[in-house]
């Protein structure tokens, strides 16, 4: 379990220095993840240190926003009212071109057309009361 909060009517993790830049960047249409300058490893947020070389010098960097579906599910029920109108909706694990994996909803495609390996690119949609959220679309 981890603590969740609501930002503009949408369920969100409690933000801290390890995850806030990732979510803040969504307002600017950017996919921000972390990168280790010492061993050139790209990391999924929120890394405290580089899981490859142990460096504590990890930095936030913008990823290109392209990737592919690593795995996906279709939620046939939900536990939060924010998602009720979306059922059945997908949640995908996206592997970015740089390597890190992020959870996101993929839009612009029928759930039945989803497939592992499907190429996707970042897009940003407003959810709740106008909160920008990173999603992906085919392409």
């Amino acid at each position: 379990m981890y603590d969740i909060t609501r930002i503009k009517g949408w369920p969100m993790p409690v933000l801290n220095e390890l995850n806030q830049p990732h979510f803040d960047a969504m307002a600017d249409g950017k996919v921000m993840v972390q990168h280790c300058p010492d061993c050139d490893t790209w990391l999924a947020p929120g890394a405290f240190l580089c899981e490859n070389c142990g460096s504590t010098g990890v930095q936030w960097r913008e990823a290109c926003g392209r990737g592919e579906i690593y795995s996906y599910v279709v939620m046939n029920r939900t536990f939060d009212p924010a998602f009720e109108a979306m059922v059945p909706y997908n949640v995908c694990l996206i592997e970015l071109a740089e390597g890190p994996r992020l959870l996101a909803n993929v839009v612009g495609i029928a759930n039945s057309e989803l497939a592992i390996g499907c190429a996707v690119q970042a897009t940003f949609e407003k959810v709740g009361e106008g909160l920008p959220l990173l999603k992906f679309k085919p392409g």
Partner: protein
Amino acid sequence: MASKKPLAAIRGFAMSDLSRQYIGPGWQLAVTAIHRAIADAGLKKSDIDGLLINKSPVASLMDLPMDLLDYAGLKDLTLCSVVEAEGSSGVQMVQQAALAVQAGMAKAVVCVFADAPIVPGVSTQQAFGMPLPLMGKLGSEAPTGLFGPVAAYALAARRYMHKNSLTEDHLGAVAVACRQWALKNPLAMMKKPLSMEDHHNSPYVVEPFHLFDCSFPVNGAVAVVVTSAERAADGPQPAVYIHGMGQGHRGVTNRRGFENEIEIGAKLAGQGAYAMAGVGPKDIDCAQVYDAFTYCILLQLEQYGFVEPGGGGAFALAGQTAPGGSFPVNTGGGQLSGYYLQGGTPLSEGVMQARGTAGERQVKHDLVLTAAYGGRMMYHACMITSPHASL
């Protein structure tokens, strides 16, 4: 096989009543199981000098408090601790008790798991349907709507199925086999036969998981009494000797090159237990593994070395894990068709099989592997037990 002395032994074992109804708080169920296990061991409360407690990660400390010793009327303990390693704790408790007994820190340790997730007005879906930090450190479960362990495991299962070209038939075969075992187990909650068609026709909870790919939560408790091999030998019940133990924890690495859905710590745990016992997977007669979801059995069969990597699906589809198959797995129906008491489920069936008291479902039980995991299969513990004091 090697000829080594066992590390310790299980002398007593018992469960509380199991129910889909609310039959009391977790601590009360725990006290019942503790007292029954002590009686089963032929011991008195005053013989017990150690208590290890495992609560569900989603239950509060109030439900199974540290001062359970007072509720249970235990005094003058030389070992008392809450073991928190998620679902792997059930087996980890027994491991820690065995180590304490070996070190002379305690003579008779009660290990207990209890949970009461089903309360009036709260469905089990709601009880378990919170966003879980199962994907790593980011916490994107909530904003993307990935709620509950079913969803997190379905995501892992999809990757595993893709990698090994598996279909819902392979998952269904696991559910059907577990149900066949459950029909032979008076304790099991599921009493109706289950066909492949029934599995496929059951509603999706989170695709690719149908309802019957998911475990069956109950309220209940499991307790065992761990002593030295010598002290267990003169108990009223057949002793269950612990010959090997292992753990494996790999964490989650969310980037290319790391398939957390397939390369899990069970392999490491198994290697440790096999080395300690001086046996290999081919020597094991049956396995009791944590099966919160169908996919988990398939992967553990591979990771513990019972089948080749990627071979779990075909093995289950051929009926090899079912009654009459070449390698019985989760002979009480597991968590899928028996009862979901987290690590307490494989532990309970492992003890009954190793004792030779499993009734109609008893299988060859010279060597039993009992395994449990926690998180999204991040934390693993296993042990190798037998009714024989030497292998």
